[in-house]
């Protein structure tokens, strides 16, 4: 359904962009590229390539045969892909030809430090919020140079849901008082006595 809408929108864009004479030629036009959201402040992204254990990928994949066949993987890349509930697999984001880069849905190469461009291909709402500061985190300051954490800094790209973890300690109860929970204030005895008082 959505792909049909996208296709339709693509055609409309083509019609607008291509002058009348050019429309007659059967050559397919270049799709529009994402070039950021207008009005968003410029920013840098915290690089993450140094933290990737297997990067550069070509240190192994230069010597391995590549296959585009969808299959179960084994070590070191066990099939632990929780992302997309089975709708996507490795080559939706990773490039088969150039192993050291990611790829967008249009097949454009994307550096691992710019991973948000890949995520934004599907999660456009979040991507836009992230551009404007309503999603994700800004490093350190409030004014001046704007540096953002990449999507993959917080979300594991292969299993993006954030895991539950233990909270920090609860506030202490003031000495001399006891912790009472789940008090129904409306059913507290003070209201009963108030009602009795009103009846009298």
């Amino acid at each position: 359904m959505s792909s049909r809408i996208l296709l339709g929108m693509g055609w409309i864009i083509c019609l607008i962009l291509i002058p009348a004479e050019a429309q007659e030629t059967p050559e397919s036009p270049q799709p529009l590229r994402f070039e950021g959201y207008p009005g968003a402040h410029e920013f840098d992204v915290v690089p993450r390539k140094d933290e990737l254990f297997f990067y550069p990928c070509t240190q192994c994949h230069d010597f391995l045969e590549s296959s585009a066949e969808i299959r179960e993987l084994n070590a070191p890349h066990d099939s632990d892909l929780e992302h997309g509930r089975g709708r996507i697999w490795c080559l939706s984001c990773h490039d088969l030809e150039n192993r050291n880069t990611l790829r967008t849905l249009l097949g454009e190469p994307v550096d691992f430090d710019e991973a948000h461009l890949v995520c934004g291909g599907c999660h456009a709402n979040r991507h836009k919020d992230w551009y404007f500061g309503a999603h994700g985190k800004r490093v350190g300051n409030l004014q001046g140079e704007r540096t953002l954490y990449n999507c993959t800094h917080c979300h594991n790209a292969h299993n993006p849901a954030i895991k539950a973890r233990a909270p920090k300690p609860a506030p202490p109860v003031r000495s001399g008082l006891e912790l009472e929970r789940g008090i129904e204030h409306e059913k507290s005895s003070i209201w009963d006595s108030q009602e009795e008082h009103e009846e009298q």
Partner: protein
Amino acid sequence: MSKGNSSGDGGHFDKARRNFLRGLGIGTAAAVAQPAWGGQTFQDTFADFFQKDYRRMSAEEIEAALERIERKAQDRYDVEIDCQNTPPQPGVVYGYAINISRCKGYRDCVHACVKENNLGRDSQMQYIRVLQLDQGDFNLEHSDHYYEPETVPVEGKHYLPVQCMQCDDPPCVKACPVEATWMEPDGIVVVDYDWCIGCRYCMAACPYWARHFNWTDPEIPAEEMNTNTHYLGNRPRPRGVVEKCHFCIHRTRKGQQPACMEACPTGSRIFGNLLDPDSAIRYVLANKQVFRLKEDLGTEPKFWYFSD
């Protein structure tokens, strides 16, 4: 604000009073000028007694007060702190927004705040409370901020951090009988801890339970003391005064993030300048469904919540 004009009727009494005060003033000056008698601590105590309201102090008097604060911290905690008086930035009014669909109730903000603001580790005082509520329930009376499950978020619960809402029409300021609390030009409601008499009227007036009274002298290990302090913010406070969140005035006025925002691992806290149309907070206010707590009271909190 009018500057204490003497009325014509009580001229005689006024003159006598003025002479008396002048005498005191000379006494104070003598005490300050001669380090020979009484020693530094005695002089500081003496000067503290005659210290004016923050807004009535001259630049020199504030400077002297800051030095006294630093000396007292040295005495009390054996730490060399840097107490500053960073002025508000022009054209800035701070606002806060919290994404409650992203908040998981980790309480990282609470503990970062305790550390940043030199809150007593023993005194049970915390500026931020993270309320746990049943999903779909927004009755704050059903909330629990003592929750302690194995892991958060708990299934079927949602979390709502509350702290000082920095109201634009703050009822606490109206309640203060000595004008020890007021709103700064950048929208932060601050307390002059030296002028506060500890009557706690403001606590009764605050609809958000955001003000706290410190019953004990804050106990802070010397190595955990935050030495970057502000007169109106996180400087070591005396016992028996009211305190509250001040949007990390010592950080935000220098263009840094408040400590709770920096500590939040989920990025649910969005802080910024409400007067800057390009700021993140303005994007949130323009593009998200925001609401404020107890909005019907008309206190105009500069603190929004939203979910997406």
